C-alpha cells in the first residue's frame, strides 16, 4: 500500500470524487463512499462511469460490490489498468 499523499493515482481519483463530494468531506484512502460521502446508488453510477472513462477500464457491478473505500478503489483501478 502506498502513502496516499505521494500516490498520483490517488490524486487523480480524488479529483474525480470532488464534483460528487457535496458534503465537502476530507478524502483519504479510508473514506467510505457510502458511510462518509453518503452517495446513493445514482451518484455511484455516475461516479463509476467517470472513473471508467478516465482510465479506459470497466468496473463491473460485481467488482463494485467489493469496493467500499477510496483505497480499495485505488487498488482496483491499479489492478484493472494492469
Amino acid at each position: 500500500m502506498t502513502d496516499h499523499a505521494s500516490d498520483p493515482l490517488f490524486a487523480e481519483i480524488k479529483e474525480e470524487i470532488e464534483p460528487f463530494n457535496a458534503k465537502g468531506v476530507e478524502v483519504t484512502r479510508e473514506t467510505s463512499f457510502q458511510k462518509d460521502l453518503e452517495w446513493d446508488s445514482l451518484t455511484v453510477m455516475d461516479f463509476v462511469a467517470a472513473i471508467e472513462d478516465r482510465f479506459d477500464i470497466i468496473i463491473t457491478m460485481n467488482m463494485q460490490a467489493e469496493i467500499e473505500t477510496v483505497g480499495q478503489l485505488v487498488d482496483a483501478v491499479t489492478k484493472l489498468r494492469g
Partner: protein
Amino acid sequence: MTDLFSKFDALIQQRETLLSTGQRDPFSLVMEEVKSPTVAVVNGKETILLGTYNYMGMTFDPDVIAAGKKALDDFGTGTTGSRVLNGTYQGHRECEDALKEFYGFDHAMVFSTGYQANLGIISTIAGKDDYVLLDIDSHASIYDGCAMGNAQIVPFRHNDIEALEKRLKRLPEEAGKLVILEGVYSMLGDVAPLKEMVRISKEAGAMVLVDEAHSMGFIGEHGRGVAEEQGVMDDVDFIIGTFSKSVGTVGGFCVSNHPKFEVMRLVCRPYVFTASLPPSVVATAATSIRKLMHGSEKRAHLWENSRKLHAGLKALGFTIGTDEPQSAIIAVIMPDLEGGAKMWESLLNEGLYVNLARPPATPANMTLLRCSLCAEHTSEQVDEILGMFERAGKATGII
C-alpha cells in the same frame, strides 16, 4: 435478538410521516368494480383509469373473454404443474404459435409472468465469464435476472450510445456478451435509440435482448415494438414481452430465431420450477395476440390520445418526462414526493387514477405521476382528464 425488519425502519417512518398528514395511501388503492378498460369504481366513485398498462384495451374484448370462458369449461381452472411436466396444454402451444406468427420468429417460449421471462432468460444465457451490458434505467426484472445469474454486469448511462460503444470496446474480444435494452422505458415513457445501439452491439459481437413490454401491440407497423419501428427486428436475438400490458392478461414470453433456443425449456429454472399459466389465461392471451395483429386503427387512435394528452398537459404548464410523446406513457414530473402525493390524491378526488411513481423505481430520484393511455379512451375522456389535471394542479399549487 436482532429484528430482521429493522432495516426497513426508514421506509416505515417515511410512510407514516406522509400518512400522518391525512394523505391517502397511494399504494393501497382498491378497485371495487371495473366497468371497462378505462373506468373503475374507487371508494364508491366512478374513476377514469389513466394508470394501467391496458394500452390496447383488450381486457373486455368479447372474443377474448369468450375464449377464456371456453378454456375454463374445457380445460379447468389450472394446470397444477410445470411446463416441462404436466403443465403444457394445447392452449400453451397455441399461445406460442400465436407469438411466433405475431413476431415472425422461429421460437416462442411462454413464462408465467414477464418478470420470470427476464429473470429466466438473462440468468440462464449469461454465464460466469460472460458480460451483460445493460442500461442503468432497466426494469427491476432485468437487474434481478442479472443478480440471479453470475455473469459480469456492466451498466451504462441511459440511452447513451457512446457509453455503450466505449464499454463494448473495453471488453475482451472473445468473451460472450449480451446487451440488454428496452424498447420503451416505463418510467419516462421514452424510447431507446435501438437502431444505433443494436448495430454497435452486433459489430462488437454481442447478442441483443430487447424488452418490448411497453411497446407490444402499439409501436411499429404490426405492433411488434420499437425494434420493428426502427427496422432492426432481424438483428435482435431475443425479444422479451409480457401479456400483462397490451395483451390484457398475465404471463411473459421470449421469442428468438436462435437455432438452439428450444434447449431453454430444459435449463431455464424460472420456466421449469413453477406452475404454468392456467388454460383460460393462455386462451385469452392467444386470442388477444391474434387480434392485435390487426389493430392498426386502435394503434392510430392511441397515438392520437397520447399526442393530445401530452400537448394538453404541456400547455397547462406541467413538466413532462419527454419533449414529444414517444409512447403511450406520459410522465408528469412532480417537485417532490409530498407534492406528488397531494396531486395524486387531488386527481383521485376528481375521479382520475394515475400512477404515483417514486424512487428507487424512478430515474434521478424523481417523483412522477405516470399516465398511461388506452386505445379505448375516447377523445372526450382525454378532454375530461385535462380538465381534472388543471383543477388539481391549481388546487395543489403545482401549476
